[in-house]
């Protein structure tokens, strides 16, 4: 009898801290299967996402949107869907798009985005007239601080080496203050926070953000006074995609929605994590109950 009790306690103790490889297997399956099935669900945009959507949507055609690629391959799977959907939305609205990067790793992502989204989906968009890739410049927040007053001091050429004075869409741009909206993609340093502190506040320029889910809570203090809106992680991307699909069904029904697809994987993974937490707590309380019972018997 005492032996059974001891074995039971041992089993409960072990179940409290099951081998993490089992958790890894469940999480892998929870992510892979929904992605393979390609399911997607509609999302209702939260106010913070809707605010950025409305800002982009209400900009008159020809307005200037600066998209800063402040991320790298590490976070690209999470951030790229937000870049793609905002770029598509901007092009659909006929905005002039300025691409740049304050991260060295962002430069190749600007090129990739242009090649994957802009050129094939918006063939009418002409380089130098409707969009430009300014590329990467070193300097972090120092770069932002300089170009908020004088763009050409840092950017004498675009990413292809073309003289900036020869680019038609740069002729009206003296500084960042000529931008109607800046959206920074990436939650690291330098990123959205630096854009707010060194461009948005001193230059009175509207700043929007799109970042990883883990960075989003730190940026909430800047909304809505210093940041017009924020897309946080895959959830933010899925909400934006769902809303744009709802508003522009004809233009977007054939477009990929990676955010909405990945959201299903995230949902299943979250549920699996919750089940594990519940399981761990049940085992913990059972173990504690046994311990108490034994202590009382003694």
């Amino acid at each position, binding site marked *: 009898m005492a032996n059974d009790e001891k074995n039971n306690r041992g089993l409960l103790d072990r179940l409290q*801290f*099951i081998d*993490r490889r089992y*958790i*890894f297997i*469940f*999480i*892998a399956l929870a*992510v892979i299967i929904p992605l393979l099935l390609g399911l997607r*669900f*509609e*999302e*209702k945009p*939260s*106010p913070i996402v809707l605010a950025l959507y409305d800002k982009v949507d209400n900009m008159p055609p020809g307005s200037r949107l600066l998209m800063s690629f402040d991320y*790298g*391959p*590490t*976070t*690209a*799977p999470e951030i790229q869907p937000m870049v793609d959907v905002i770029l598509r939305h901007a092009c659909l609205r006929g905005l002039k798009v300025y691409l740049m990067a304050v991260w060295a790793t962002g*430069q*190749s992502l600007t*090129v990739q985005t242009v090649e994957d989204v802009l050129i094939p989906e918006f063939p009418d968009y002409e380089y130098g007239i409707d969009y430009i890739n300014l590329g990467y410049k*070193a*300097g972090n*927040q*120092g*770069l932002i*601080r*300089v170009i908020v*007053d*004088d763009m050409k*001091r840092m950017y004498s050429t675009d*990413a*292809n080496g073309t003289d900036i004075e020869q680019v038609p869409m740069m002729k009206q741009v003296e500084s960042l203050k000529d931008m109607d909206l800046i959206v920074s993609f990436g939650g690291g340093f330098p990123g959205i926070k630096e854009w707010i502190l060194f461009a948005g506040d001193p230059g009175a320029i509207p700043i929007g953000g799109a970042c990883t*889910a883990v960075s*989003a*809570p*730190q940026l*909430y*203090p800047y909304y809505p006074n210093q940041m017009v809106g924020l897309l946080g*992680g895959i*959830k933010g991307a899925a909400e934006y995609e769902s809303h744009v699909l709802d508003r522009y069904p004809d233009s977007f029904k054939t477009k990929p929605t990676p955010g909405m697809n990945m*959201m*299903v994987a*995230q*949902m299943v*993974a*979250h*549920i*699996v*994590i*919750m089940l*594990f*937490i519940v399981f*761990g*707590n049940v085992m*913990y*309380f059972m173990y504690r109950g046994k311990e108490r019972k034994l202590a009382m018997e003694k």
Partner: protein
Amino acid sequence: MWRRTVPIMITFIVGTVLVVAEFIPHKPFGNLGEDFSLYFDIIAVFAFILGGGNLCRVHFSKVYRKKTDWQFSIVTLLGFFVMLAAGLFKIGNPEGIQGDVTAAGSLFADLYDSMFTPLQGTMYALLAFFVASASYRAFRAKNIDASILLIAAFVILLGRTPAPSLIADFFAGAGITFMATAFNFVPTLTDWIMDVPNLAGQRAILIGIALGVISMALRLILGVERTYLGSDSK
């Protein structure tokens, strides 16, 4: 004197001038902030050289002394020198030595796209597994504080997915109205947690950091804080 007084004087003058420049946006102070940002970039370039040199020193030493896992150091050094050579000499660049370092078809771009990008993505993706494992171990309702944290985590985990509305639809279909209402309320509760308790905490942290930065800046400008001068600075 040269090792202590001169750096302290430089710090005092630069710090004071930049603070003054922030409040007087006219000549000769107007562009000082921007100019110093550019000087910072120039100085920072040397940090890259120092960083590269330090990486080589540490890993060559590890290989030479055959310390634990020294084989990984060979991979690190190999990766460093191959990328450096591919970028410096623009190997395979279709536009030649004058072309863009990241031009399509160059060895640098190929290595970046086919090795660096997937490796970085993989490393970040592993986070999901460790977060899941850590959550399982850490979230135990051992006391009131831990229970509040656990409940908040559950609400956020559920609220950051479309699950609540799907579950609410299921309950509504089954005629269990109160459950449908409860699950429909989860996204609102998630937004409230983010907008109120999270915001309050984040603001407190931000204000604390800002006060700390001001205090540290004053200590540096006034020469009270001297640790940046090295261990023999007292």
